[in-house]
């Protein structure tokens, strides 16, 4: 079964900005994320993982008059939770997805303390249709 693990940030997540971390904190965090990906590949569970560019470059697009795209700034990082990256894993079931999400959530942050950041787990609708 495929799951998408979404890593989100926002003002209410209460996580200290990376700008306040020491070089050692950053190194530990980066290495942790590399290990996560390597572990998923080695376990045969890795499908995809992507980081997204910062939300200040995000744009909201709606079709306007005659289908012409109307582009506006946003979502604004100070007002909303925003997606910073995601993993897609192919694993046994929801318990394993929760286990992986829990592990990622505890990635080291400021002073090497676990971030305990929120990871949203969503099932990808990729199952075979059942006979009804």
């Amino acid at each position, binding site marked *: 079964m495929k799951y998408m693990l979404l890593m989100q940030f926002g003002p209410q997540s209460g996580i200290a900005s990376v*700008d306040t971390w*020491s*070089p050692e904190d950053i190194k530990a965090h980066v290495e942790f994320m590399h290990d996560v*990906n390597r572990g998923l590949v080695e376990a045969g569970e890795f499908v995809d*993982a992507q*980081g997204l*560019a*910062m939300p200040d470059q995000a744009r909201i697009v709606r079709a306007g008059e005659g289908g012409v795209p109307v582009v506006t700034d946003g979502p604004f990082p100070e007002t909303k939770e925003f997606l910073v990256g995601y993993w897609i894993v192919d694993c046994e079931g929801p318990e394993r997805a929760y286990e992986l999400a829990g592990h990622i959530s505890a990635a080291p942050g400021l002073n090497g303390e676990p971030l305990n950041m929120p990871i949203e787990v969503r099932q990808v609708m990729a199952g075979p249709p059942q006979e009804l």
Partner: protein
Amino acid sequence: MNISQPHADDLLRPLAPQVVGVLTRRFGDFGAAEDAVQEALLDALAQWPAEGVPDNPKGWLVQVASRRMIEQVRGEQARRRREELVAARAPAGHSTSPAADRAHETDGDDTLVMLFLSCHPALTPASAIALTLRAVGGLTTAEIGKAFMVPEATMAQRISRAKQRIRASGVPFRMPEPQERRARLASVLHVLYLIFNEGYAASGGLGLHRVELSREAIRLARTLHRLLPGDCEAAGLLALMLLTDARRPARTGPGGVPVPLAEQDRSLWDREAIAEGTALLTAALRRGAAGPYQIQAAIAAVHDEAATAEETDWPQILALYGLLERMSPNPMVSLNRAVAAAMVHGPAAGLALLEPLADGPLAGHHRLHTARAHLLEMAGDIAAAVEDYRAAAGRTAAVPERDYLIMRAARLAARR
């Protein structure tokens, strides 16, 4: 199977454009010929490792691809009959096209024609790259898809649409006319350069499944240089690739984090590639007026010649960037010249040259922030440097580069 035989892949891939050439002249349909050769390559990859390489690999491929092509034509004809449509054209009739018997067409010419066709300016860079890697490089659609991290079906469609576009634009399958040859060669060089850069920068995602695009670009540039030994820019491009790729082993640390030129372990550089690139460049420069690829190769050579970062001949690099800027003005060249100026005349001179770039196409570009951060750091303006490193980190599209920039900012901030 004789294990001392070359790897099936290495043997196959240079044959791909030659076989497409034979089939295109025999059947008169480049798009279908290219598809049939792809099928034949997949057959070969499946059969040769187990059954051994045939005595005449090219003949084998021509035979299998022709059979594939005839099956395809028959299948199409049968389908048309079923649909009670009169076949408006008989593809078999093309076999008598005059080009089929031209004896002077050699394998090398076919490879060159294929390069000109696949890198046609009517194509977008992304589709030209895909078509070149398949039709000339002999890579499979799956391999190309993996290299660009898109599904195989997407890549297959991109290649198919590229061929439709070539057909629609009515470009004949032959060498471009002398008067347009220069412009067409420029787009071939550009596409090969883009393939090399894609592999060299390896910017996308985690880089877990990337095939060696740089190595493939070097192989293609080597082929082009062999086919056009008198062309100085073809030699210059190959030299540029070799002299740049030579630094690859030292370019990244653990986890793919980039190591700046000044901090690289130069003992890891590939001396053989540097020697080959330098020899190519020297020979090309001796033949007359240098073009942009030769100048860029010369800059890479100056870096490669320095035993330590401190010994780098920056005045020469600055002069070369000045030359390049006059020859082909482009903001990225101006940015590099500003960095070289800082190394020669001090950071203030470099920062002054960067200033006007902030109003141009590089405004807000991560490379501009990175360059300015380095120069501000040199100038001792740590607070401003940290700010620019962070701005660059927020704008780059490469994860390893972002990690490097955040780390650099944190190290500087910690020193304050």
